[in-house]
């Protein structure tokens, strides 16, 4: 099953590689990983999308907690949460494709943020599956380049992940 794990860790050199190294050393899978400092710049917030049986996810959580630089770990997917991912996608946009691509961007509430005679760059935000679905919806031959940030997530309601 897919899980979104949020981690609060010390914003120190090497902290990210401890997390990444743990996943590769123990054979856990990383689908996406994002990391950036929080409002307190001594802390980084890291979000990992992974998948595995309940036993594997339990071990991942425990092993992450064992890392000295890790302050808190929470499995967001255990409760109501919001996930967002940003994608920039460069597509061919000429001839009749140009109008169609604009329409598709509108349907998905994307924004065209760069325009040339032959191309668009579309910015799209949403859940990972929404971004997947956009890629599915347009003609694969028209995609020139995609870049995705990976998933960020936050719990709904008054649950917070803080020191």
């Amino acid at each position: 099953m897919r899980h979104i794990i949020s981690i609060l860790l010390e914003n120190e050199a090497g902290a990210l590689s401890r997390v990444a190294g743990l996943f590769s050393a123990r054979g856990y899978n990383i689908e996406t990983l994002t990391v950036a400092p929080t409002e307190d710049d001594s802390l980084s917030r890291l979000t990992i999308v992974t998948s595995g049986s309940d036993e594997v996810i339990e071990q991942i959580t425990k092993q992450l907690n064992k890392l000295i630089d890790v302050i808190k770990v929470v499995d967001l997917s255990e409760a109501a949460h919001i996930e967002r991912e940003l994608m920039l996608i460069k597509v061919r946009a000429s001839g009749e494709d140009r109008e169609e691509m604009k329409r598709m961007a509108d349907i998905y509430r994307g924004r065209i943020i760069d325009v040339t005679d032959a191309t668009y760059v579309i910015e799209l935000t949403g859940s990972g599956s929404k971004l997947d679905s956009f890629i599915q919806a347009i003609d694969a031959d028209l995609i020139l380049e995609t870049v995705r940030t990976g998933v960020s997530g936050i719990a709904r309601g008054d649950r917070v992940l803080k020191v």
Partner: protein
Amino acid sequence: MTMMTGAEIVIRCLQEEKVEYVFGYPGGSVLYLYDELFKQDKVKHILVRHEQAAVHAADAFSRSTRRIGVAMVTSGPGATNAVTGIATAYMDSIPLVVISGQVPTTHIGQDAFQECDTVGITRPCVKHNFLVKDVRDLAVTIKKAFYIAGSGRPGPVVIDVPKDVTAARCEFDYPAEIRLRSYNPVIKGHSGQIRKAVQLLAGARRPVILGGGGVILSNAAERLTRLTQLLDFPIATTLMGLGGYPGTDRRFLGMPGMHGTVEANMAMQHCDVLLAIGTRFDDRVIGNPEDFSAIARKIIHVDIDPSSISKRVRVDVPIVGSVPDVLEEMIRLLEAERERKDISEWWKEIEDWRSRQCQKYTMRDDAIMPQYVIEKLWEITRGEAIVTSDVGQHQMWTAQYYKFDQPRRWLNSGGLGTMGVGLPYAIGAAFANPDRQVVCVTGDGSIQMCIQELSTAKQFGLPIKIVNLNNRYLGMVRQWQEMFYSRRYSQTYMDSLPDFVRLAEAYGHVGIRVEQPGEVEAALKKAFVDHRDELVFLDVRTAREANVYPMVAAGKGLSQMILADENM
């Protein structure tokens, strides 16, 4: 406050931590540190002959006491040589602080002479590591390192110190205490869980206790013994837990697992309640986890490390906490609890298994049986020596035939299985326990992996006794080849072995060759009595194709034991 150089700060911090011995090897990046070591005499430096041995010796210092071992190595090859030692300590949760030199901060990343990414290389085999780039962080980092190494589930911590940091100056202030917001190991076990466990124990009809290395590490042997005797339950200990309960007591079943006894393995498989303490259900201990889990029994698991719980085996009553505290609480509750089930039927079953005498072996007139050597060694040392071993058949025979009654007397590499630890372990233990006899049981393969340390032992006059069970084979690998690879002895015959007696003599020690069964006892006496104050290397030519039994093949369940022919 006083201004100090980084090197002065390191040595002062070691003094503050009451470090008596540093095992190490100098080099370019640690010249300032060695210069400061030279100027004082509180911290004694033990010069080894290879950095791997420095870490092993520091590791044994810790294993045989309860203190944190300290090693010091230079950058690049010094650090990479230390890695085997660090990984060995990590697998067995041994608290160490390893200080490695690093090239100057301005050179880092430039592929400088003797540069390597020590923090990167050691990351997967340390509890934590640090690269100190600013001299002002040095003292607090050392404080953190000692705190992290020794608390919670212990482990090695590496501090990588660039050469310019050891030369730079700042004010010295050693914090008396340290708190880390990201690291707060749980100590106290959950009282509700402990009560639940006690109820299970009191209601058990076929109980068994399993003690692991955590019992030794947390100094809980005395409490485990009290609990076991209070309940009058059978107890097994893992390889790492030997000495956690008196090996000569009737309740002791021996080790379970790959080379465990029939009684320990059968008790594990047929019990209704298993109390596992400070152990991690390692593959060598439980065999195939699916087979192990297929048997209905309630498992209580006490461990300081939450990630050890339900990692390989689902448990029914997990208790995260410090082993001695949890045991104390259990004893308190059990003393109040009068209701106890009669387990005499279970004891009868166990005695039946025990009566199969699975460790019996047949003496030969023409060859020395290795098991006999260990039995004699136990007799002559009255079971009181600190015994180190390397890895292989000799290690298993020592674990099976030397009955450890006390904790911290049995030092071996259980998790990583590092050949070559035996002699450096003996060196570390000898420094930590100058009044105690230290014996290294080894084999003709293992001893050659750190044999250069005979020179260290000579330099410091350590009266270690080395018992080399020499069968001219890499015996354990050969045993597997015999049993599972149709006797194709691929690369396990040790051709061109040195003359160990003359080799020991060349290093300035006493060497004795033992070739006949009748000579064993006299040779041991000669070594332990006549040459009491010298290092003696006993080269014992043993039966070549003796095997370790019982044996559970890899991937099999614990009930599927292969016994020695005569016991089948």
